[in-house]
């Protein structure tokens, strides 16, 4: 919850072309990416964007392929708004915010064909690798979408395949990379008045009329999600696309 005074301060700042934390309308907060943070995971990363920090990890398990795609593995993305990350997050099964977060990250990463799932087949129609990507905020200060996508990608990029030997999963001394075909990032905006601020903080999201997340893969739009109970003007959406493409170049550098 945010006070009326603070909300006004945020709106006034944005209206005059700046932000309460000193950023410009089109500035991201500082980004930090660290990989290999959980040795038990096949791949893992922590990402911080300003005061937001998230941890992502990959576990590879055996599973049965979907009947309509018998020779493909599966990538599943989950997110939990862990109550340690903010005083308004509650313990318990994921609610709509967590499910939206997971599904938007999933759409950006899975639907863009980031993982080459054809290389995850063990026995056609019977046994495939299922990649579970799970994302948890450690400290939530807005823009969990972009931090989540970045952490998920960083974890995938560094993930190693377990081996399947004598009907058992071996997770020791892994060398083979998990097959990653494309790099995806997302860029999130919040509409405050007539401006679209990039990388919104939690307070900015709270005063915003609407939110827009743009998933970008190699210069193309691969996922979109509008959130919030207000609206976006058509020209704002076009502006967001242009800016998202520009920001994606900088975000991609963090995945190298």
């Amino acid at each position, binding site marked *: 919850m945010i006070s009326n005074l603070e909300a006004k301060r945020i709106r006034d700042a944005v209206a005059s072309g700046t932000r309460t934390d000193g950023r410009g309308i089109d500035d991201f907060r500082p980004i930090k990416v660290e990989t290999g*943070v*959980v*040795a*038990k*995971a*096949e791949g*893992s990363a922590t990402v911080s964007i300003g*005061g937001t920090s998230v*941890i992502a*990890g*990959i*576990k590879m*398990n055996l599973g049965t392929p979907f009947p309509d795609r018998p020779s493909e593995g599966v990538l599943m993305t*989950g997110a*939990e708004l*862990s*109550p*340690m*990350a*903010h*005083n308004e997050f509650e*313990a318990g*099964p*994921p609610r709509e915010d967590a499910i939206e977060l997971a599904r938007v990250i999933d759409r950006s990463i899975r639907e863009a064909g980031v993982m080459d799932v054809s290389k995850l087949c063990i026995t056609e129609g019977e046994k495939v690798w299922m990649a*579970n990507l*799970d994302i*948890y905020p*450690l*400290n*939530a*200060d807005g823009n969990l979408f972009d931090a989540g996508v970045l952490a998920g990608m960083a974890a995938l990029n560094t993930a190693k395949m377990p081996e399947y*030997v004598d009907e*058992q*999963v*071996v*997770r*020791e001394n892994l060398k083979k990379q998990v097959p990653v075909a494309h790099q995806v990032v997302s860029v999130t905006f919040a509409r405050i008045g007539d401006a679209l601020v990039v990388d919104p903080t939690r307070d900015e999201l709270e005063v915003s009329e609407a939110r827009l997340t743009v998933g970008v893969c190699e210069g193309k739009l691969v996922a979109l999600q509008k959130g919030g109970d207000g609206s976006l003007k058509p020209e704002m959406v076009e502006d967001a696309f242009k800016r998202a493409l520009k920001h994606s170049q900088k975000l991609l550098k963090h995945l190298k």
Partner: protein
Amino acid sequence: MSKMSDDKPKFLIKSGKRLDGRKPDEVRPMEMTVGVIPNADGSAMVVCGKTKVIAAVYGPRELHPRHQVLNHKARVRVKYNMLSFSVEDRKRPGPGRREVEISKVLSEALERVVLTDRFPMCAIDVFVTVIQADASTRVAGLNAASMALADAGVPMRDLVVSLSFGKSYDEKGAGHMVVDLEKEEDNWGMGDVAYAVAPALNEILLLQMDGDLTPEEFAKGRQMADEAAKAIYDMQKQALKAPYQEGSK
């Protein structure tokens, strides 16, 4: 199941040396840091060997649901949770029976040291998250939880110092008491105990065991644990003071 955990080692201790080279009364290298979750009122991270946990405290704050409110004191509510990728085989998200039980005994251990009567009708929520598990996660979590409470400025009678101890077999199958169990010792050992004390009060706050121990073995293990607890207690206090010492941010 993964392959490694299916192979029972020939011994867990040989000539007074454990699989990872430790002596029976030696704890794994530990790291303790407070203030790791800026949003929380208090927080702490404890690394013990390959086990890594974070505890975050929110509160004292309004308690929901309202029917659980206690008119004369606060409720200390621990929620112990493991990240899905903190273990070898993926853990399904959400608390199972194990997590619920651990949360309960950890809440009860902390309830004793927190001055709950200062905050009637409130909740003091403690979220214990296992980032990486290599045995002894509940005791590492309890160490972190008591530090996070202190970091939050919650008035307490004492810190809680917690560790595991157990019985490991040598190459002849004879048992030896050891402290701070790692994964293999936990999986294959002849008994393990989760133990916590409030050193200044000389009280036991957590006690769980499975396996088989004679009363003499238990006494020996407890004595070793109490000795190791002194060093952990000092580390906790050191970590809590660190942010206020000269040269720190």
